[in-house]
């Protein structure tokens, strides 16, 4: 309360920095506070050291072998995706306190955290003390350890998180500047070269820099250490650069946009045990989803139905489409195909539709032909339905496309892909001119060597060749001489002589 009265002035900002120093290890589900020496590595370089490992001399940037020799530490591989996900989840939860949330990640050291602008929320939460208490209570419930810092600028708050001053409630810009002046310049992690130059010049803390600023202007800093460094100093202390209308040049606060997804539920008046009765609710929910997607210019490829009974049993039915859709009709047909192939496990009391992975609407090119091609969306839909029916009947593996894979051995260059994937059709010049059969045997078939020559379901005569293919010398060396052969019934075959086994094989048929 008192904090709100003392600090808050319209237009002034108050930033809270939350620095998650143990994040790389904690996201891996490992407790960082144990006695065991532990490091997290990325590309064989140590990017995080716990306290036990630090005590025995392991440092950031060391290679893993040295770290192991020094401390016999446990090495974990970094998972940046998990770190980003953790920060995203924390942002989503902290959104209840303030809408202004920015993630912060240092480019030079493994330090990540969140910057919260809280000046507009002080009144709502009755002051800085109560707001901080609530935020900390929430964060203590998570398993992430954190350090905090308050300042009038986001960068200043981040730097003060390395000192963690007690919150008195009387903080103002002058006090924050005083605190910042005491900090060592080594905390400017993103400017290693400039820090080195400053150290050589005799600068030890931020106070030395501000004294320089008082004596000369910011231009002197800009001249000696560059515009980027000067800008960083201005950002830390909120130094105004002789601007007539500075509000125009204020850096806008980023408004956190929570991840939005579609989830809607229908409760039935009586339990449903026949799939036919679900058709109308399914259609209704899908129409709502379609409306939601269209309003946001989104489309989706994957939805999930959750059937629930009165005993809270759940049954999930995922539905995937080969093409992304914002219309409901295709998803409706695909859902019914899925439902036709199974029975309901219980009497359904409620039905939920979830769509958590929507993507922005892609620009669709459409043929300008006004004839039969004009209904391309309709034909794409009918094709998607046919493919879904076939997959439901034959299995997902039975319906596929083919793609070229860059490989030397012919059998390795043929690749099965999903219908949603795009086939690689870039054939190297080496293969473009070579004669290739239309059919490839799954595994090369051994050719008999008889008195009259080669025999595979008939006598063979060589027509052309050889084309030598050598591959995989680093594991199982392969060397083959390929020929075109004609069988007695005039069928042309693609055969090869295995130079290692000294045997002949049929590999393909010209069709």
């Amino acid at each position, binding site marked *: 309360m008192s904090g709100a009265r003392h600090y808050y002035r319209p237009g002034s900002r108050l930033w809270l920095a939350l620095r998650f120093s143990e994040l790389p290890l904690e996201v891996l589900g490992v407790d960082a506070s144990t006695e065991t020496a532990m490091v997290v590595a990325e590309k064989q370089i140590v990017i995080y050291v716990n306290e036990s490992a630090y005590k025995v001399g392991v440092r950031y940037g060391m290679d893993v072998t040295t770290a192991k020799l020094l401390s016999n530490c446990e090495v974990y591989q970094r998972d940046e995706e998990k770190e980003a996900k953790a920060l995203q989840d924390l942002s989503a939860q902290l959104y209840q306190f303030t809408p202004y949330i920015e993630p912060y990640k240092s480019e030079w050291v493994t330090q990540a955290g969140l910057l919260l602008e809280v000046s507009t929320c002080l009144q709502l939460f009755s002051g800085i003390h109560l707001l901080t208490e609530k935020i900390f209570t929430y964060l203590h419930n998570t398993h992430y350890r954190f350090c905090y810092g308050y300042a009038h600028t986001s960068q200043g708050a981040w730097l003060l998180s390395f000192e963690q001053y007690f919150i008195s409630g009387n903080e103002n810009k002058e006090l924050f500047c005083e605190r910042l002046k005491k900090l060592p310049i080594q905390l400017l992690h993103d400017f290693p070269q400039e820090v080195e130059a400053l150290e050589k010049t005799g600068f030890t803390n931020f106070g030395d820099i501000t004294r320089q600023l008082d004596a000369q202007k910011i231009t002197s800093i800009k001249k000696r250490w560059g515009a980027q460094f000067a800008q960083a100093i201005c950002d830390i202390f909120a130094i105004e650069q002789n601007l007539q209308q500075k509000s125009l040049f204020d850096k806008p606060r980023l408004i956190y946009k929570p991840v939005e997804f579609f989830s809607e539920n229908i409760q039935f008046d009586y339990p449903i045990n026949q799939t036919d009765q679900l058709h109308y609710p399914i259609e209704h929910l899908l129409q709502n989803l379609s409306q939601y997607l269209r309003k946001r210019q989104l489309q989706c490829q994957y939805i999930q139905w959750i059937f629930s009974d009165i005993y809270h049993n759940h049954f999930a039915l995922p539905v995937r489409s080969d093409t992304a859709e914002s219309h409901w009709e295709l998803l409706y047909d695909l859902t019914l195909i899925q439902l036709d192939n199974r029975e309901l496990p219980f009497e359904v009391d409620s039905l939920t539709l979830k769509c958590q992975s929507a993507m922005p609407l892609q620009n669709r090119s459409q043929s300008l032909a006004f004839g039969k091609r004009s209904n391309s969306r309709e034909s794409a839909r009918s094709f998607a339905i046919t493919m879904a029916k076939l997959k439901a009947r034959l299995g997902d593996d039975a319906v596929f496309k083919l793609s070229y894979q860059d490989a030397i051995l012919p059998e390795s260059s043929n690749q099965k892909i999903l219908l949603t994937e795009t086939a690689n059709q870039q054939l190297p010049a080496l293969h473009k001119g070579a004669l*290739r059969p239309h059919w490839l045997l799954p595994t090369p078939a051994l050719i008999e060597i008889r008195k009259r020559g080669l025999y595979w379901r008939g006598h063979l005569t060589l027509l052309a060749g050889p084309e030598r293919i050598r591959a995989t010398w680093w594991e199982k060396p392969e060397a083959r001489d390929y020929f075109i052969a004609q069988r007695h019934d005039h069928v042309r075959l693609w055969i090869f002589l295995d130079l290692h086994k000294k045997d002949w094989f049929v590999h393909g048929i010209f*069709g």
Partner: protein
Amino acid sequence: MHPTSTDNPDCTLDRLLGRSDIWRGQTKSLDVPAVMNTGYEALDAALLNGGWPTRSLVEVCQKGFQQQEWRVFEPVLKAGSNYVVLLNPPLMPFCQAMIQAGIDLDQVIVVRVSTAADFLASFVELARTASCDILLAWQQPYALSYTELRKCLLATNDGSGLCVLFRAENARQQSSPATLRLLSEITSSDIQLTLFKQKGTLEHSSQPIKISLPKAWTGLMPYHLLDQIPLPGKPDTTQRKPAKVTPLRRSK
């Protein structure tokens, strides 16, 4: 009570005769059905409307283990702008050959089946799909009865593309409701196609249509024939008998 069209027998007959699936012997139907250009002049000339008939069943009987379908249908596959579905192909198509032939791999879909019932159901589904431009289906190793073939034919009438069913040579002796039936054979220099049933015509040419094989398939000339190629400005010596050479026996 007003007379309806069904009351008038002439009207009913006209409507029946207007259907494309009514066999009218030598009388050609008034509306010319859509066809796909085969890419071979001789074949186009032999086919009723100058190309492969769409929305109907084309049956290709193949001799032995021959699979010359790519050579015969390559021009159609290249020209197609929509999906091409290969149902139950005998082997895996080789991507490199398809890219060389100019076939768009993104448009080619392979469907594998494990039972005759699955084959029939898949054929019917695919033939009815409007966006399936070309359906190439290999019946073997499954056997299809006349009724099942009739189901396939009816499904193709609902679609809009070219539907081809590849069958074994002995299927030629069996009755089939297919609109077009032909036999495909390969010789040392060409593929020979014999049309033995074509709906809408009773004429059957005894002469097979020949599609020449690519030059690369014919291979190199044997060494003993090399001197028989006439050189420019020199008299033709191809009539000259090659020298007799006694084969050497391998000593044991």
